[in-house]
């Protein structure tokens, strides 16, 4: 922690080319602004990351893992886009449009889904420095692009210049377009997270959000409906349709600017640049507001002390205590709400866009089963770091638990809370999916399979929570993810949890998908078995290493 403070002081003073003149400026009552370039923020961020990695093997391993993953993503993205040079020009352009859009959406949603993938500066730490809005904006932006994933995004996007640019002049336009697309990804991602965290901290905000979640899912269906409008299952025509729908979205304009060149491209670049500036401004405005606005999410005179159904049904004891506490947190803690919001939206979007992707009319089974299974995995993703939200408060459990069994009960309580919310949600999802697929009876296997997948995902999540726990920051202002340097661990937990959960779900999902719906009767017992196994292993491990879990989940950021 001393290192962090030194980092701030050293960074800011080092960058203000004359720290003394800056200070005397404050003293003499001049404008008071310190001359600080974006370089200072980049160095500060690098120091924070380096400091966060120091002295922890897990975190270092996580960091290395995420660097490798980012290099793979960057390389793969770059070559995929570059290889489009071999494709017909219009196909290449359309594909780039779609890929750019996916990149942008990824930046908006992934940080919401998995806290901590994206570690950034906490702007509240800068609140006392005399910085102008412009400085703060460029500084926060510079700090935001200093990271493994932003770089990977940039490298991948540059593949489009190789793949699309018509000539040397086109390449210049292309470079600018790619930079703008990249900047847009960053500022939009930041704006959404900052604004959401602001909204979520008010009491009304969460109701608004619940409604808007449905709205977002519906809007996401629009391109789908357009595409479905009379197009055959021809992938190229489908691509063309999708691309034309996305033509005037920012990503579409960026892709077209690279591909087309000429004055039109310049106009598109100008529009993009303005968009980046406007969104950047909005982001900083939201940030400034968030920094000086009190968290209103708790400003009730009193909370209702009514006991939920779960508390009445469960026997008195630790299991009921943990489960009801977790349910209260899902309701009262903005971080819990963001997680559930993102899980629902992404599930909705992913699940129901599958209908329309036109790949030779997916079978009835896929249409009915897939949404529930994806939803179950997304919800399970919320449980890959089950002790994260408790964080520094977890000592209270630690001083009470004296055996592996106690920890197992604790994890079971958390799973029970997740299931209490997730099972009805997945049931609704299964029914809707079955209705959309046109065969209501399929709702039964769909729901059963989804529950099974949830169980498998929770089982995996219990292990990741114990083996690679990480800190979820208490402050939602900045919507920072993990403490700097912990992004790698968060990535490993989320990604690993997702993959392992998916693989473990295959034994129950595959037979159903391949046309044996009766197999779904085994899904729930299988899910229960995997989650029980996960808890059993995790309970023992947690008892053996709870001081380490405590330390990992309560790092200051």
């Amino acid at each position: 922690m001393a290192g962090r403070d030194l980092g701030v002081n050293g960074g800011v003073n080092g960058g203000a080319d004359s720290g003394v003149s800056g200070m005397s400026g404050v003293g003499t009552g001049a404008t008071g602004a310190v001359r600080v370039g974006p370089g200072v923020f980049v160095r500060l961020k690098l120091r924070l990351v380096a400091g966060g990695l120091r002295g922890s093997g897990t975190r270092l391993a996580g960091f290395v893992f995420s660097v490798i993953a980012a290099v793979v993503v960057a390389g793969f993205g770059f070559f995929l886009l570059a290889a489009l040079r071999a494709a017909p020009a219009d196909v290449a352009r359309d594909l780039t449009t779609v890929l750019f859009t996916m990149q942008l959406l990824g930046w908006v949603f992934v940080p919401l889904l998995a806290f901590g993938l994206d570690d950034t500066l906490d702007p509240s730490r800068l609140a006392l420095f005399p910085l102008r809005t412009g400085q703060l904006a460029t500084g926060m932006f510079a700090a935001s692009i200093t990271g493994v994933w932003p770089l990977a995004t940039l490298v991948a996007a540059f593949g489009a210049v190789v793949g699309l640019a018509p000539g040397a002049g086109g390449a210049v336009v292309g470079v600018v377009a790619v930079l703008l697309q990249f900047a847009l990804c960053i500022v939009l991602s930041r704006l959404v997270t900052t604004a959401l965290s602001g909204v979520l901290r008010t009491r009304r905000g969460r109701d608004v959000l619940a409604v808007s979640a449905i709205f977002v899912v519906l809007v996401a269906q629009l391109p789908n409906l357009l595409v479905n409008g009379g197009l055959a299952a021809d992938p190229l025509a489908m691509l063309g349709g999708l691309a034309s729908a996305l033509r005037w979205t920012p990503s579409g304009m960026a892709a077209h600017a690279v591909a087309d060149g000429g004055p039109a491209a310049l106009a598109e670049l100008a529009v993009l640049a303005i968009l980046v500036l406007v969104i950047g401004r909005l982001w900083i405005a939201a940030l400034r507001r968030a920094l000086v606005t009190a968290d209103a999410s708790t400003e009730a005179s009193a909370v209702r002390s009514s006991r939920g159904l779960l508390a009445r049904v469960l026997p008195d004891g630790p299991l009921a205590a943990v489960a009801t506490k977790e349910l209260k947190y899902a309701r009262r803690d903005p971080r819990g709400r963001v997680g559930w919001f993102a899980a629902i939206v992404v599930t909705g979007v992913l699940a129901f866009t599958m209908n329309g992707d036109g790949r030779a009319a997916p079978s009835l089974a896929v249409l009915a089963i897939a949404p529930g299974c994806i939803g179950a995995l997304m919800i399970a993703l919320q449980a890959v770091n089950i002790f994260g939200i408790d964080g520094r408060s977890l000592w209270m459990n630690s001083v009470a638990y004296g055996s592996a069994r106690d920890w197992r009960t604790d994890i079971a309580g958390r799973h029970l809370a997740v299931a209490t919310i997730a099972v009805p949600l997945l049931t609704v999802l299964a029914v809707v999916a079955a209705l959309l697929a046109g065969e209501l009876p399929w709702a039964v296997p769909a729901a059963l399979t989804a529950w099974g997948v949830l169980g498998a995902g929770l089982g995996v999540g219990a292990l990741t929570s114990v083996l690679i726990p990480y800190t979820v920051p208490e402050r939602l202002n900045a919507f920072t993810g993990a403490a700097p340097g912990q992004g790698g661990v968060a990535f490993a937990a989320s990604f690993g949890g997702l993959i392992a959960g998916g693989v473990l779900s295959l034994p129950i999902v595959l037979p159903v998908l391949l046309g044996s719906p009766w197999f779904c009767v085994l899904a729930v017992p299988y899910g229960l078995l995997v989650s029980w196994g996960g808890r059993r292993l995790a309970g023992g491990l947690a008892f053996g290493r709870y001081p380490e879990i405590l330390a990992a989940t309560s790092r200051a950021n």
Partner: protein
Amino acid sequence: MADIVEAVRTRQLVKRFGQQVAVGGVDLIVPRGGFAGLVGPNGAGKTTTLSMVTGLLRPDGGTAHIDGLDVWREPIAVKSRIGVLPEGLRLFERLSGRELLAYNGQLRGIPKEEVERRSAELLRVMDLVDSADKLVVDYSTGMRKKIGLAAALLHNPAVLFLDEPFEGVDPVSANTLVEVLRRYTASGSTVVFSSHVMELVERLCDWVSVMSRGQIVAQGPLDEVRAGRSLNEAFLGLVGAHGHGGGEEGLSWLGATSA
């Protein structure tokens, strides 16, 4: 002292953070019953020591015993005997005070009716009845210390560990805390607390352990440790404080004349 089992006894407790030795072979002794103070400057290793004794931080070496039971070998027996109020007031922020106590009691397997009865009494004694249904996140520092202490007392532990219980607490709340703790120790229970406030330690404690740079530099009955001086003087002498901050050199720019 050989014939009685101490409430707390550590032997050569060691904790390193990377290169830095936070606690370097601490032999903490706390006799049973009454108040024991753990004093020392910032960074002396008080919090690290208390964390290791309460089973929240794994020591790199040495042992810790509470009532003769090894903290790390017999966790169930130890954990039911101790109550803890760690530094930094890390509580479940989104529970109300009443819910926090209920949570704590249920975790420890105390029957619900009993938890409710004890919670009500603790809330009343701590003067928290009006705020019992507010979320802990909205509590002031004094209220948080009080609800934290209530949570630590709920299962009636034999030994209570409090890390800086009076830090940032207003005099009224501090008085409440002291009153409750006095009642608690009157029946023979033990309170171990760390503090910077020498006057308070002097007023409350019959036993003092002084830590400096990861070592115990003095330990024993209060009168023995202060040896006729005030505890503050004895403390400054023990930790080897030289009057920094009063010298003429350095900081010449500080102050209104420098502009």
